[in-house]
């Protein structure tokens, strides 16, 4: 039997019979089910190195021993090969926008973000994958794949062991990276050339 997935199952769309007491009342159609999890985060060695370096305004990645690919944030392993990545590499605080999203609706719990805002995959120079950041200092309609950016850091006396040290990424004004070489496109091309799964 093949069901049409666009038609809800009968019990979710059909009529139900109710006791008379409820015949004329407005039915409940939605319910609040908030969830909340409080937890202690204790980073492992790769994340600890990464977060500690932030206090010195440094961004660390780790390099695959197999082909030299650089991962940021470092996770202690090259997930393609299951190989440990003990070697850190320091990365510059410049790169390009690999992909981005303009958000025009407020997010509960993030009153600090003025809408609209742009979240983006930032591909640092020398890194093979992107990590998430905010792009600002430019009209949201001007943001584009391949746009060159640099980090805007908190003042030195406010730096901590956290990626929040980077307030946002702003355009450098340099010429864009071609879209075909931006973000994961560069990664896929490199992997294909090396005969690796993308």
């Amino acid at each position: 039997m093949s069901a049409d997935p666009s038609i809800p199952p009968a019990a979710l769309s059909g009529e139900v019979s109710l006791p008379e007491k409820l015949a004329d009342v407005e039915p409940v159609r939605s319910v609040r089910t908030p969830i909340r999890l409080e937890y202690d985060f204790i980073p492992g060695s790769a994340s600890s190195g990464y977060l500690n370096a932030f206090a010195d305004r440094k961004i660390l990645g780790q390099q695959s021993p197999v082909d030299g690919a650089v991962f940021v944030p470092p996770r202690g392993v090259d997930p393609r090969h299951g190989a440990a990545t003990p070697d850190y590499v320091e990365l510059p605080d410049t790169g390009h926008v690999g992909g981005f999203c303009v958000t025009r609706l407020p997010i509960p719990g993030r009153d600090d973000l003025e809408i609209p805002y742009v979240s983006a995959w930032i591909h640092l120079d020398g890194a093979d994958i992107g990590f998430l950041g905010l792009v600002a200092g430019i009209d949201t309609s001007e943001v584009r794949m391949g746009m060159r950016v640099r980090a805007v850091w908190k003042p030195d006396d406010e730096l901590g062991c956290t990626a929040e040290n980077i307030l946002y990424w702003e355009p450098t004004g340099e010429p864009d990276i071609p879209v075909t070489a931006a973000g994961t496109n560069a990664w896929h091309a490199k992997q294909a050339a090396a005969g690796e799964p993308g």
Partner: protein
Amino acid sequence: MAERLRADLVLEYPFTRTTGPVIGAFLTGLREGIILGIRRPDGTVLCPPTEYDPESSEPLTDLVEVGPGGELLSWTWVDPPRSQSPWDQPHGLGLIRLDGADTPMVHGLLVDGPEGLSVGMRVTARWRPEREGHIADLKGFVPEGADQ
């Protein structure tokens, strides 16, 4: 040696879900101060109601009033309640088979201590005065005849 790091983090989502007609009816009943079960083709009644028969998977649609009294089938004592609990005082949690239902539902047992609870005892529903269509509209269950 680098500093050993630790952070207190909170993950929180303010979900609102649509209910469908069966769960919606159950919650409507709670708002109106009655508890609903749902009748299976063999005449037995599930409470809380489910949208499908647990054996045949056929849709179920016949909602019937059960309770407000019932029998306590099993219980445990909670002391102290966790910070996100609907209850701010130590309380029981029990499996309560309401009159007219054939399956038990879980809810709070509002007594002063575990010595006030026993398997097989009769309990009855206590309601909040302000109700909105939520499981917490039902404050919990108290021993039948209690003047709470």
